[in-house]
């Protein structure tokens, strides 16, 4: 396997806060890579830098042979990098079908008809199990359903890599299972995934490789089984075992405790 996405020594600070301090890792083609770490370790900032929503102070991001460092969000998307957001961002007053069609301009002209046909849009909604709500405004959906719509919106553009920011965050167990199933299915079809997630069961279940971030840098990379026994990682996570981690403990209110123990 060759690296599809390569992040090297990326730094980014907001005022005095160093969000990324020399972050490097690679995402292999065809893999499902997990990016985990305590709150505030820079995972979402890393996503923003890769997808052009933020610009790195230094360092480089390469995707499929292209240097995408500092490229605007629309262009990065056009190259085949899709992403979802931690707080799902759907177009609330557009119907689900319309939501899927917004990305029409983001693909090459020659492929628009094929990728955004009524039939394919309906297939995508069917894929995430929301066909019945095709004509409903996205704002009327539950939080978990919105995450699925976001996934379908991204899939519509047929990206080669999809970045998922907490795909299982704040949604019910049934939908979590559905989400995991869909990711595995797409991965089999050749889609590469990079995902940030706090639900360890979810991460360990679907990821081939896990990269652990702490304080703006990747401190460990490996197979899920290896990473969960890495002393550095255990130290970053409260010194406890990852198996014990309760998704609730990763909620923002618990974050100061996790970080406080380290310093």
């Amino acid at each position, binding site marked *: 396997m060759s690296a599809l996405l390569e992040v090297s020594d990326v730094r980014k600070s907001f005022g005095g806060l160093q969000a990324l301090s020399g972050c490097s890792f690679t995402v292999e083609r065809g893999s499902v890579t997990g990016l985990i770490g305590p709150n505030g370790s820079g995972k979402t900032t890393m996503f923003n830098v890769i997808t052009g*929503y933020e610009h790195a102070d230094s360092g480089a991001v390469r995707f499929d042979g292209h240097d995408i460092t500092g490229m605007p969000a629309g262009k990065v998307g056009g190259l085949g990098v899709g992403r979802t957001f931690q707080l799902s961002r759907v177009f609330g007053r557009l119907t689900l079908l319309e939501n899927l069609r917004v990305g029409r301009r983001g693909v090459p002209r020659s492929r628009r008809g094929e990728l955004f046909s009524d039939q394919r849009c309906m297939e995508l909604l069917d894929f995430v199990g929301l066909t019945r709500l095709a004509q409903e405004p996205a704002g009327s959906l539950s939080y978990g359903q919105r995450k699925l719509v976001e996934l379908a919106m991204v899939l519509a553009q047929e990206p080669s890599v999809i970045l998922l920011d907490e795909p299982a965050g704040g949604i019910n167990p049934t939908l979590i299972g559905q989400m995991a199933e869909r990711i595995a299915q797409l991965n089999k079809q050749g889609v590469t995934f990079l995902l940030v997630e706090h639900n360890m069961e979810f991460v360990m279940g679907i990821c081939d490789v896990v990269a652990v971030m702490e304080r703006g840098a990747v401190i460990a990379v490996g197979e899920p089984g290896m990473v969960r026994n890495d002393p550095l990682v255990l130290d970053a996570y409260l010194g406890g075992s990852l198996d014990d981690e309760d998704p609730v403990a990763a909620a923002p209110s618990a974050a100061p405790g996790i970080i406080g123990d380290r310093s």
Partner: protein
Amino acid sequence: MASSASLAVPADPLSGRGLSMVRRVLLGALVLFAIVFPFVFTNPATTSIAMFTLLYVGASSAWNTFSGFTGYMALGNAVFYGSGAYAFANLASHLHLNGGMGIFALVPVAGLIAGLVALPVGWLALRTRRHTFVVITIAIFFIFQLLAYNLHALTNGSSGMSLPIPPWDAQTYNTYFYLAALVVAVVAVAVAWVVRRSSFGLELLAIRDDEDRALGLGVRTTKVKLATFVLTGFLTGMCGAIYAYYLGSIYPPFAFEAIFDVTIALMAFFGGLGTISGPVIGALILEPVQQYITLRFTAGGFSLIAFGVLFLIVIRFMPEGIVPSLAGVLRRRLRARAEGGASPQSSDSPPPGTTVSAAGVAGGVRS
């Protein structure tokens, strides 16, 4: 775009992409009524009110095509109204044209000039968003008003410009302007309809709901916004040109009128922001009321007070405007009848911690 009828989706009676038979007939009847109106109601006072109403249908619809669809609340469209008026006056005087029917051919030309004015205005104003955008458009409006007083070569300053006098008698005078205004109003509404149904219009609505997300999905937000802004300028300019020709003379305070900016926005809000029929219904109700009040109570400003009260009532009881509120009631009725009270929602409810943020995303500009 293909019709959604072929899809295996329970068709929603109010969100179909084509026009239903009933709607087509109603629309045809409405246009027919509008055409014969001045020949039935020949009283010049009536036709004058009707003519102004149609101008506002056009201007409010044009405003809505940009501001209603994108959520960028422009309060300076009088810039294009005034530019269209002065462009028309200048063209007529420099070409030494006589009054008559032929001169209406200059209306689209004046519109194009107003569209040209909208290009730098939009380029500048659209570098900002939300409240800043509103303030910038107001500021640009006042700059143009000031220019109208001072650019004597183009506007003849506060002495104003006179336009060719048409050779029509008092009884039929208004009819010509009425029909010209009807054409512009129909064009403006048709443009809104076409835009709304195109993928271009979908991009505008996506910008309204979450501009940065749209950008990330490949929507070229700057281009799309500017193109629509210029289109709005063109349509508004045509309204201004007819207005100038009708008045027979044009002065800075009439061409660049702050009340115009507020009125067209109010009409769209009143009828239903971001809908096709909203600004039409808003203008059809509010403009005759305003004209009537102005005729009846000559004391200046009374109509403005009445407008303010009306606006407060609408915002309080129908915050989305008449059309969406009534459509919502109708849809709920139909659904209740169809499903016998069964809820379409799934059991997956958002966790307490995320409710606020999720609602924030859905709320969009309404907040």
